[in-house]
């Protein structure tokens, strides 16, 4: 009886747009779904630092170097907010990190693709951050309070990143032949993986219905993907480049762009760990974690020593 009442009150709150807060009663599945999604999101920020970090040492100007470093650092900051938001659902950051490092937890598959040229810094900013933003703007209104608030902060910085990515490509698109080729090549490589970021088709997606009922999500994967295609298909005109899809075409009836079929075999393989960089990413995360173990131990030992010194003095 209690459970039914509680569930009813819970759904009423959701329906009337009242945020669910950490101490509120919530169905176990709501807690789990949010925990999974927020921690995955945090992991994506952290793993996402690696492909862009790959170009810090080789950024082609001091200004670009500073902007890129600041961007990667922002992602670390996003990871922090998100781990904090996820911790309100009852799992420690240590546990979440352990799950990431063991391969148990997932992160966005897009970061399992390599950044091969400087133009990739532009394409990642424009396409990958661009796709992420559509999802994140929606999540600013998600029903779990701490997640929604983290997203509001993150969205501000992300839209800045996307503009910077576009600017990198814009300069390349107006540059030498080699730069223009670099630009087109990066767009060719990142376009399809960016479309995959929205996840499986609605007809294949298992969690979608319940997530929409609970307002964890407010748009389906396919709706967001279409929104992204419509946006990018227009923006690319400013670059004078093309998207690598022969089926991409404006549809006057639907008022949307039609686009070709995603390679779902590749999608599922990258999810399962067979992408070009899955292993490298986990090796890098584990290395940083393992080599940092003595530092974390020392910090804890030192803090405890100082605490006991203060206690001794106080006594």
């Amino acid at each position: 009886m209690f459970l039914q009442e509680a569930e009813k009150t819970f759904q009423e709150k959701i329906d009337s747009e009242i945020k669910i807060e950490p101490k509120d009663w919530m169905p176990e599945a709501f807690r789990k779904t949010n925990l999974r999604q927020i921690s995955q999101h945090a992991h994506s920020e952290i793993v996402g630092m690696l492909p862009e970090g790959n170009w810090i040492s080789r950024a082609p100007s001091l200004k670009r170097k500073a902007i890129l470093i600041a961007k990667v650092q922002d992602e670390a900051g996003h990871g922090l907010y998100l781990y904090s938001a996820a911790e309100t659902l009852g799992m420690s950051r240590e546990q979440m990190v352990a799950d990431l490092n063991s391969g148990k937890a997932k992160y966005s598959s897009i970061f399992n693709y390599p950044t091969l040229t400087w133009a990739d810094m532009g394409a990642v900013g424009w396409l990958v951050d661009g796709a992420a933003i559509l999802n994140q703007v929606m999540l600013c209104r998600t029903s779990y309070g701490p997640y929604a608030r983290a997203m509001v902060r993150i969205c501000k910085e992300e839209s800045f990143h996307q503009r910077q990515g576009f600017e990198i490509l814009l300069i390349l698109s107006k540059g030498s032949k080699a730069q223009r080729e670099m630009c087109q090549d990066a767009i060719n490589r990142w376009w399809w993986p960016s479309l995959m970021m929205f996840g499986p088709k609605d007809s294949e997606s298992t969690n979608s219905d319940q997530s929409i009922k609970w307002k964890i999500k407010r748009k389906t994967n396919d709706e967001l993907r279409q929104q992204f295609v419509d946006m990018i298909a227009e923006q690319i005109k400013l670059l004078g480049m093309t998207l690598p899809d022969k089926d991409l075409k404006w549809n006057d009836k639907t008022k949307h762009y039609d686009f070709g079929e995603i390679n779902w075999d590749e999608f599922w393989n990258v999810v399962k760990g067979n992408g070009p960089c899955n292993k490298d990413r986990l090796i890098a995360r584990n290395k940083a974690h393992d080599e940092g173990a003595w530092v974390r131990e020392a910090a804890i030992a030192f803090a405890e020593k100082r605490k006991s010194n203060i206690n001794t003095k106080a006594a």
Partner: protein
Amino acid sequence: MINQKTINATLHLADTTLILAQKNSEWCAHGPILEQDIAITNITLDLIGQSRMFYQYAAELINEVENKNETEDTLAYFRSEREFKNFLIAELPNGDWAQTILRQFFFSCFHQLLFEKLQHIEDKQISAIAVKSLKEINYHVKWSSEWVIRLGDGTLESHSRMVKAIEILWPYTGEFFNAEENDLIEVKKIKSNWIQKIEAVFFEANLLIPGNVFMQTGGKQGIHTEHLGYILTEMQSLQRAYPGLEW
């Protein structure tokens, strides 16, 4: 000739901050703790900001004297190993977190004393950069001091790693105080203050300053370790491969 002296001194300041930033930036995305990944990256960004101000000023002076078209980027990306004037300590490998922290601590303490003097020199541009940078450097000193103490007085392992780091880095600190014709201040005069700062923090950290050690030198004259060539090769690769383009 006054200008040539200022140019060399400015390039030395620019090169040292850039190369140290380049090394510190290797920690970005690989730090031992997420919060500290962010902290060292902040320092990296400050150092790049400082190097850019110095390069821009050096470019301005060079263009005036030699009627050239230098920019911050031509100076950073098209000078070779023998032309770079950074301190050797900046180009050494990061080693572990202890070594990175200790280098930052040695350098930032020196930087603080140096810039406290530079803010009063006649050259308006350099003194303005010094004033602006000191706010940042004071934080670098604070942050790195805290870490030296934390690691020195943490666990047995962290302590022994700090001892090892001192052994590796101490021979590269003598260079800070080697007088050279291009110096903007009398560097010898800040040596005792620097030693005092180090001693005070080492005392709290249960660490000791080594006895008489032979000191390495050569950075300001462009005589470097073998590490710098690789750092520049990587850093300059795109500009060298596609010269003269906008990025």
